[in-house]
C-alpha cells in the first residue's frame, strides 16, 4: 500500500492495544458469507514512476494543436499564477470550511469571490458555487419555483436557443418534481428568440422565463424586451450568462427595468482549463429578497468574541446538513477549488483585463466567421450580432469534415445536426483571444482544401 505509514512494529503494537490478534479480527462483524477474497478486476498496484509513464503516454495521444470549439466551454489563456496558487496544499487539501477557525483562508476567498460575482452579474448576493452551469440552471429552476410564492403552475419557459444540454439537465434534475418545461422557438434568420414568441403566453401563470445571453448560437438576445415581458406577466427571470461576456455586456441585474431574479452560468471561462469537461463550476447570484431560497453555501463577514473581523458560513438553515428533507437543495460538496481559481483569475485580469479578453474573443470570432464565409459553400447562418461564437452553414455533412480537420490537428467546431436538425449542415465555431490571425487563416485554408478536395472527388 503506497501511502501507508504503518511499520510491522506499529501494527503489532496497535493490535495489542486493541486486544485482537490480527487485523482480520476487526472485520468479524461482517457475515462470513459476504467477505471478499481478492479483488479480481483491479490490476496490481504500480509505483508512481510506472503510472506517470502511462499517463504521459495517454496525454500525448490526446494532443490537439488548434481548438475552435466553444459550445459551453471556452479556451482562454489562464495566467500561470492561477493554478500555481490554487494547487497550494493549503487550498487543495483543505476540508470544507465548516470550522471557521481552521478555514479563514478559504472563507475569505469565498467572500471575495461572492463580491466579484455579485458585481459582475449586477446582483446583490452570490453563493459559493454549484457543480456547473447546466446543473446550476436546474437549481435555478427549483429555486424559482420555491421563490415564486404566487405562481402555482411550475411552468418554465426555455428558448430553444438555450444550450440544449442545459435544457436536458434541467429536465433530468428538476423534472422529477413535476415541473413543466416549455420551449420557445427562435428566429430562423436572426438566430435569436423573437420577443413576439412570448405573446402566446400573455396573461398565463408562468413561473419563470429563462434567457441565455449570448445564446447557444453565440447570438445576442433582446434581453431587455424579454425581461420586461416576464415582469409584466408576473414571471421570474432566470438569466444564463457567460461570465467573460459580462465585462462588456449589460449585466442581468440591469436587464429590462429592474433586472432579473436569478443569474446562473458556467464559471469555466474564468481560469478553469477545458480538461475534457470538468471540474468546472456553476455560479449563481440573486436578489437579497430571494436569498433564503438559494441553494449552496454562502459566506458572511463577522467579528469574533474579541471583536476581530473574520468570515464564516452563513444562512446555513437553507442547507441539507441542517434542514435535511426541507433544504433548498441536496448540494453539499461544491466546486470550491475551481471557485478559488476563478477568484484569482478575476483578480489578475481585473476589469481592464476581462474587458480585453471579451473584446478580443469577440473580434477574433468575427474575423473567423468572415474568413470562413469566404470559402465557397460556407456561409454565416444567422444575421444578428454574435458575441464569441457563431454558426456557419456548410455544403456537406459536418461529421466527415470535422474528422478530416481533426486529422490535421484542428478541432473545427460542433456539429449541430443532433440538436438542431432543422439547420441542415451547420457548425458552431468559436475563437477566443488565444487565436491569432495566422490560426484563423490556417483553419480557413484547411477547411477550404477539405471542401475543394471533396468537390473534386
Amino acid at each position, binding site marked *: 500500500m503506497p501511502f501507508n505509514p504503518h511499520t510491522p512494529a506499529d501494527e503489532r503494537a496497535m493490535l495489542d492495544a486493541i486486544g485482537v490478534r490480527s*487485523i482480520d479480527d476487526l472485520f468479524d462483524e461482517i457475515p462470513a458469507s459476504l467477505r471478499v477474497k481478492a479483488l479480481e478486476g483491479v490490476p496490481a498496484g504500480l509505483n508512481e514512476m510506472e503510472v506517470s509513464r502511462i499517463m504521459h503516454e495517454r496525454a500525448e495521444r490526446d494532443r490537439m494543436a488548434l481548438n475552435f470549439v466553444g459550445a459551453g466551454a471556452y479556451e482562454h489563456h489562464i495566467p500561470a499564477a492561477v493554478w500555481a496558487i490554487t494547487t497550494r496544499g493549503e487550498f487543495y487539501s483543505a476540508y470544507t470550511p465548516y470550522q471557521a477557525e481552521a478555514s479563514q483562508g478559504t472563507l475569505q476567498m469565498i467572500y471575495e469571490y461572492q463580491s466579484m460575482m455579485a458585481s459582475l452579474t449586477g446582483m446583490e448576493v452570490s453563493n459559493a458555487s454549484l457543480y456547473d452551469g447546466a446543473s446550476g440552471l436546474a437549481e435555478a429552476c427549483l429555486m424559482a419555483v420555491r421563490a415564486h410564492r404566487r405562481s402555482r403552475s411550475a411552468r418554465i419557459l426555455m428558448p430553444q436557443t438555450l444550450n440544449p444540454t442545459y435544457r436536458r439537465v434541467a429536465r433530468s434534475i428538476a423534472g422529477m418534481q413535476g415541473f413543466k418545461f416549455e420551449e420557445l422557438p427562435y428566429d430562423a434568420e436572426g438566430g435569436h428568440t423573437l420577443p413576439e414568441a412570448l405573446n402566446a403566453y400573455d396573461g398565463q401563470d408562468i413561473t419563470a422565463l429563462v434567457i441565455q445571453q449570448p445564446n447557444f448560437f453565440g447570438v445576442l438576445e433582446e434581453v431587455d424586451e424579454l425581461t420586461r415581458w416576464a415582469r409584466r406577466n408576473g414571471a421570474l427571470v432566470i438569466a444564463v450568462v457567460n461570465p467573460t461576456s459580462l465585462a462588456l455586456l449589460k449585466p442581468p441585474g440591469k436587464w429590462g427595468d429592474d433586472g432579473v431574479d436569478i443569474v446562473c452560468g458556467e464559471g469555466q471561462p474564468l481560469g478553469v*482549463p477545458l480538461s475534457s469537461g470538468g471540474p468546472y463550476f456553476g455560479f449563481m447570484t440573486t436578489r437579497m429578497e430571494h436569498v433564503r431560497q438559494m441553494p449552496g453555501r454562502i459566506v458572511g463577514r463577522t467579528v469574533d468574541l474579541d471583536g476581530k473581523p473574520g468570515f464564516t458560513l452563513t444562512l446555513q438553515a437553507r442547507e441539507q446538513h441542517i434542514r435535511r428533507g426541507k433544504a433548498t437543495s441536496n448540494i453539499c460538496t461544491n466546486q470550491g477549488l475551481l471557485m478559488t481559481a476563478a477568484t484569482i483569475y478575476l483578480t489578475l485580469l481585473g476589469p481592464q483585463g476581462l474587458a480585453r479578453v471579451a473584446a478580443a474573443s469577440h473580434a477574433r470570432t468575427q474575423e473567423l466567421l468572415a474568413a470562413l464565409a469566404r470559402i465557397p459553400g460556407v456561409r454565416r447562418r444567422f444575421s444578428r450580432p454574435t458575441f464569441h461564437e457563431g454558426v456557419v452553414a456548410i455544403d456537406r455533412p459536418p461529421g466527415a469534415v470535422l474528422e478530416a480537420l481533426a486529422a490535421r490537428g484542428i478541432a473545427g467546431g460542433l456539429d449541430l445536426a443532433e440538436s438542431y436538425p432543422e439547420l441542415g449542415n451547420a457548425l458552431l465555431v468559436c475563437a477566443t483571444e488565444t487565436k491569432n490571425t495566422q490560426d484563423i487563416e490556417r483553419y480557413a485554408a484547411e477547411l477550404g482544401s477539405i471542401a475543394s478536395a471533396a468537390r473534386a472527388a
Partner: protein
Amino acid sequence: MNTPREKIIFEHSRPGRAASAQLPDAVQGDARPMTIPAHLLRADPPALPEVSELQAVRHFTRLSQLNFSIDTHFYPLGSCTMKYNPKACNSLAMLPEFLARHPLAPESHGQGFLECMYELQEMLKAVTGMVGVSLTPMAGAQGELAGVAMIMAYHRARGDTARDEIIVPQAAHGTNPATATMCGCKLREIPCGPDGDVDVEALKKAVGPQTAGIMLTNPSTLGVFERRILEVARIVHEAGGLLYYDGANLNAILGKVRPGDMGFDVIHMNLHKTFSTPHGGGGPGSGAVGVNKRLLPFMPVPIVAREQHADGERFRWLTEKDLPQSIGRLSGFMGNAGVLLRAYIYMRMLGREGMQRVAEYAALNANYMLARLRGAGFDAAYPQRRASHEFILTMRRQAKELGVTAMDFAKRLLDYGF
C-alpha cells in the same frame, strides 16, 4: 512567525492598476466592439480588484496560510475522511494535453483520456460488485440524486407508479433526505437500535406498496457495521423496494465486502473520500454511481464504452441514443473529468492489494484510537461494537459531570491543530 489577518483584496486595489502581463492586446485598438448594439452593452465596469500580479500572488498566498489542510494538519474526521492527496495525482491529471482538451473535441483525440475513464469504470465495478458504472455525477449528493432517480425510473418503467416513499434511518447524512425530496419522493424515517443497527421491526412496519426504496450506508454513519444487512435487504426487496447504498465512504469495506454482494441495487461513491481526490476547501467531488442489472438501462449518460475495431480497440461515449431509458444528463459535459483522472491514478497506484489495505489500516487505526481514548477515560457510544473506519464517543457524562460539551472538546482540539 505569526501570520496576521490579511486585508480584503479590494483594499489592495487602486484605480487603473493592473497585472499587465495578463492583458491581451486590444485586437481592434479599442476595447468596445462596434458590432454589438449599444443597448446590450454594460454602462459601468464591474467592481473587480485592480492590483499588480505580485499583489495578487501575495494576497492569495497569505490567505492560503490561514487554512488548515491535510498538507499541514491531521483531520481526524470520520465520514468525510481526509487522506493524503498524492501530488502525482494532481500533476499527472494536469498534464498540458489533458488540460487543453475540449470536451466536445473529436473522440479520436481523446482516446488516452477515454481509456482512463473506461478502466476507472471497470475498477469501480470490481470494488462495489456492481455491473454498471456511470461517472457523470459531480459529487456525492448528485450521485444520490442519480440513484434515487434510477430507482424511480425503474418503478415507473414497470408501471409501478404508486411507489413514492424513500426510507432513511434517522442518523442518515443530510443529503439522503434532501435528495429524496428533490426526486419528488416522500420521506419515511426509521430509528436505529441501541447497538447502532437498524431497528428491523420498525423497518418491517415501514415497508409496503408505497416503498420505492431505502437509503443506507454500511457501516452506518454511527460507525458500526449493519450485521443484519442480508435480512434488511430481503425485507425491502420482498416489499418491492430497492436498496440504495450511500457509498460516500468505502474506506471501511474496500476489498473486504461489496455492496453488490450485500444486496444493494445502486450505490454512489464519493471519490473525494475513498479515492483521495482533494477536498479543495469544499470541492470538487465526484459521485460516480454503480448499479446492478435491474438498473442498467436507467444509468445517467454519458458512459464510456470500449469497442473492438479492425485496427484495435476504440473508446467512445454512450449517450441518450444508446440508452434511451437513461435518467438523462446531470452535467454540461461528462462530470468532473479531472477529479476522475485523479481517482484513476490513485487506484492504479493502490492496485488490488493496496485497496484491501485501505480498509485494513482504516479499521486498525480507528479501533486503536478507540481503544486508546477509552483507555484515557472516554466513553464509546457503542461499547459492544467494533469501530469501522470511524466511531462515536459520547460526551454525555462529561457534559453532566463537568459541564464540558462535545463542542467544547472539538473547539479545544482546534487550538491544538486538529
